[in-house]
C-alpha cells in the first residue's frame, strides 16, 4: 500500500525538476526540489512506496532523465497516469521506475488515498475496487524487471 500524490495534465519536466537544479552533481542533491513549482512540500511528505498519479501527458517537455530519477530517489513506487510523454516513459523504464498507463484511476482517487499496485496482473486496488491498468510491452517489462537498462545491458554482456 502507498499514498497517492495527485497531479493534473501536461505536467512537464521543468515542473518535475527545474533546470537550475540539473547542475547539482548528484540526484540525491536534486531530489529535495522535486515538483517545487507545483507542490513545495512534496519531497518532505512523500514516503518510500508512495505513488504519483496524473492525468494526460505526464513528463512532457525536455529529455532530462533527472525527472524520473528524482522521483525514484524519493521512493516513488510508480507513476500512474492516463498517458505519458514519450521520452519520460523510456527514461523511466531505463532507470527502473515503473510507469503505468491507467485511464480510470485519476478520476477515482484523491490526494492521500491508499492504493496497491500489482504489475504482473495489471491491476490496481483502491477503495475496495480493482482497476485494470495497461501492462508494459515485453521488451520494456524485461528491462524493468532487471532493474533498468544498465543491469539489462550488463546481463547481455
Amino acid at each position, binding site marked *: 500500500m502507498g499514498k497517492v500524490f495527485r497531479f493534473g495534465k501536461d505536467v512537464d519536466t521543468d*515542473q518535475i525538476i527545474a533546470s537550475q537544479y540539473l*547542475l547539482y552533481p548528484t540526484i540525491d542533491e536534486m531530489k529535495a526540489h522535486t515538483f517545487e513549482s507545483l507542490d513545495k512540500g512534496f519531497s518532505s511528505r512523500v514516503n518510500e512506496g508512495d505513488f504519483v498519479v496524473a492525468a494526460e501527458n505526464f513528463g512532457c517537455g525536455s529529455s532530462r532523465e533527472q525527472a524520473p530519477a528524482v522521483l525514484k530517489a524519493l521512493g516513488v513506487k510508480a507513476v500512474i497516469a492516463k498517458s505519458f510523454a514519450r521520452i519520460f516513459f523510456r527514461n523511466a523504464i531505463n532507470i527502473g521506475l515503473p510507469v503505468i498507463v491507467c485511464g480510470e484511476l485519476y478520476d477515482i482517487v484523491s490526494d492521500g488515498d491508499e492504493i496497491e499496485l500489482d504489475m504482473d496482473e495489471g491491476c490496481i486496488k483502491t477503495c475496495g475496487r480493482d482497476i485494470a491498468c495497461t501492462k508494459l510491452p515485453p521488451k520494456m517489462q524485461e528491462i524493468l524487471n532487471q532493474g533498468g537498462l544498465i543491469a539489462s545491458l550488463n546481463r547481455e554482456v
Partner: protein
Amino acid sequence: MGMTMIEKVVSRNVGKAVKPGDIVTVSVDRVMLDDIMMPFIVDKFREMGFRDVWDPDKVVLIYDHLVPATQVDDTRHYHVSDDFADEQGLPHVHRSDGICHQLMTEAGYVKPGDVVFGTDSHTVTYGCVGAFSTGIGYTEMAGILGTGELWIRVPETIRININGTLPSNVTSKDIILTIIGKLRADGATYMALELAGDVVDGMSVASRMTIANMSVECGAKCCLFAPDEKTAEYCGVELTDELRELRADSDASYAMTLELRAEDFVPVVACPSQVDAVKPAAEAAGTRIDQVFIGSCTNGRLEDLMLAAEVLKGRKVAPYVKLIVTPASRKVYLEALRNGTIDILAKAGAMITHPSCGLCCGRAGGILSDGERVVATNNRNFLGRMGTSKVEIYLASPATAAESAVQGEIAWRKA
C-alpha cells in the same frame, strides 16, 4: 501498401521493410551530446563497463547550455567533457560555436536519411533535412556510445498538407504554433509528423527547422520533410535517386491526415504557460511586456534575425523593454554582422549576446522575476523556464516579437 517517410528511413537503416508498431534495433549514424548532460552520460558509460566509444567519428559534443559559464558549477561540465573528449579522441567538439541543434545540420553532421539521437528533446530538429532524429535520456545515450545501437518502436505517422498562399505576415513559427494548438500538447505522442504541400515546398530549410524543432511540443517522436533540391544544397550533397526515394509513397497509410489552407493562417502567440494555449496575436494585443527574446534553436537563424531587422529598421525598442537577440550559431552571427543585420538590431536598442541556448533554458542573462512578461521566439513557455514560476512567457515569431518590442506590448505585423 506504400510507406510513409519514417517507415522508409527506418527500413533503409535496418535493411528490411518495417511497419508501425515494429520494434527494431537501428544502427546509429550520429549522436549529439550536450554539455548539461555530459557528467551523467560519462558516469553511466563507466557504470555499464564500457571503455571505448563505438565510433568516435559519429559522436558530436557541443557546449551550448552553459556557454559562457554563469555559475562556478558550470565549469565542472566543461572539465568532465574535455577529459572524456581527450580520453576517447573525439574529433568533433564545439566549445562555443552555437546551439547544438543548429550546428548538427549547419556543420554537416546530419544528412538526409540518417538516424540520429541526442540528449535533448529538440533533437527532432534534424527532420528538416529528412533524417530520423529524436531525443533520449543519458542512460540510453551511454548505451549507444558503447554499442552504436538503440531499439525503437516504428511510429505511426500524422500527415499534414499545407497548400495555397500564406499571408505575407505569417511565418513558419505561426504555422507550427497553430498546428500544436490544433493537435494539443499530447496530440502526436509516440507518432511521426510528415509535412508536405506547396507551402512546405516553397519554404527554406531554416523555416522547416523551426517546424521540426517544435514538433516535440505536441509529443511527436520526429517530424520529417522530404529531401528536395534545397535540402541537398543546404547539406552539400547530391540529390540522388536514393534520397528522392525517401519521399512518402502516394498510397502510404496514415494515422491521421490534416489538410490546412495556407490562407487561413494568421500571426499567433502561445500564451502562458502551455505551448498549446495558442491564439491569434490580435487577441493578445495590448498586453504590456517587459522583455523580448529573439533567438534559440527555434528562431535564431539568419532569416529570423533579418526578419526582426526588417521590422526594427529605423525604429526604437520601447524605453522600458529589454530586447535580447541571440544568434543560433557563430556562422549566423558572422553573416548577420556582414550583411548589416546586427547593425540595424543594435541601433534599434537590442542587446546582442553570444550564440548559445541563452535565455531559452533560463540560465543566461535576461532572467525575469514575478509578474514580468516576455515575448520570446523559442519553443517552450513552461512555468519557471526563464526565471520564477510567476513569469509569463508568450511564444511568437521573430516578426511578432520585434513589433512587440517596439510597441512595448504584444503587437503583430500587419499583412
